[in-house]
């Protein structure tokens, strides 16, 4: 059994929650800016992929 299974499910959920909230919160700021006309959708969409 992998060591990651020794980590509690609660720990995994906490990690995802923290990363998810920070990511979604920052993205929501951009979405609000786009809605306000400060930024175009193309300028925000190109931010998505770390491999580019």
């Amino acid at each position: 059994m992998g060591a990651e299974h020794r980590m509690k499910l609660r720990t995994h959920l906490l990690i995802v929650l923290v990363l998810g909230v920070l990511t979604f919160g920052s993205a929501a700021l951009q979405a609000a800016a786009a809605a306000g006309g400060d930024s175009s959708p193309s300028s925000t969409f190109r931010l998505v992929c770390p491999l580019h």
Partner: protein
Amino acid sequence: MTVRRSTTVVVAAGCLIAVLTYGMRASLGLFTAPLSDVRGWDRETFAFAIAIQNLLWGIGQPFAGAIADRYGSGRVLAGGGLLYVAGGVLMASSTSGAALTLSGGVLLGLGLSGASFLVVIAAFSRLVPPDRRSWAIGLATASGSLGQFLFAPLGQAFLSEYGAVTALVLLSGFVALVPLLAIALTGRGDDVSDEPEVSTVAAIRGALSHPSYLMLTCGFFVCGFHIGFITTHLPPYLTDLGFSGSLAAWSLALIGLFNVIGAYSAGLLGGVHSKRLLLSGIYLSRAVVFALFVLIPTTPFIVLLFAAAMGLLWLSTVPLTSGLVAVMFGTRHVGMLFGFVFLSHQIGAFLGVWLGGVVYEATGAYDLMWWLSIALALAAATVHLPISERRAPEWAPSTA
């Protein structure tokens, strides 16, 4: 000499490097118009420098990986980080097109190669115990995604407050932390004492003649194709359908949120389940999601649902694909060998972006591109099935 260090410290340092380098990279797009306005450059001048940057970044990956395998990931990350900072600061102070190409193009491109996620993955592959490796890479992938979103509003705030030149210098300052964090990620291929000694040339030759490696490379090409096409052409596609920019931006937020969940979960699952089957499932799911998106009448709810589904499937391929390279060939040359796989991803991304434009200009719609994406997803789902998920015979660890 092998230095023992805490897995937690290694993973935390790698994740922070991913946050910083991807964050800075993502923010560069914000400077296109403001910096061009300040310096009086046309878009072509700026675009040429960024094109050079992308070219050097892609081509430089296998070399950065090979150098990391030979001389240590920490040194490459530190050197890359310094080049990255120098590129950013000099880009801010460039006053001519040539200077911009050298700083924002050449220096930043080389810096991106050295301080890249790929080198972090190579370090994780050597420093994190095998049973936690996939989880760690999944976590770092999710962290890279966070960095992109985190730095964009920060970059906007700096731009508004200080102007383009100072904002770029300030953002570059964050990357100066990379060489410090890299101290936790030192280690090279030779440190893996139980793996057979294989020269760099023999490693390349062996990998390129291994069918499973070639199939994996083809699969990651498709990933790049999808992501290149969607990142560039989804916004105009939605605009063509009459939707607002606001919907596109909220879709982005959902992609980011679900990408964190998808990448983290894929890393976790890859540690205990078959990576090739998970990858096959991801590509098959992409085909289904694309087909439903094209066939079902598009409403705002469907767009958001599509974004959430694509977020789950977005970078979940990364921990599984890089993990398979380590399974097949061990960790001695993992940086270089995953570098070649990554290069195929970038070529796929280039084609996804370029063909999207060509098809749209030729037909006035993206329908053909969606169906091509579905066909490629099905091909990728199929091509992963016969991959041998075990160590290639000549790369087996010595039992002595």
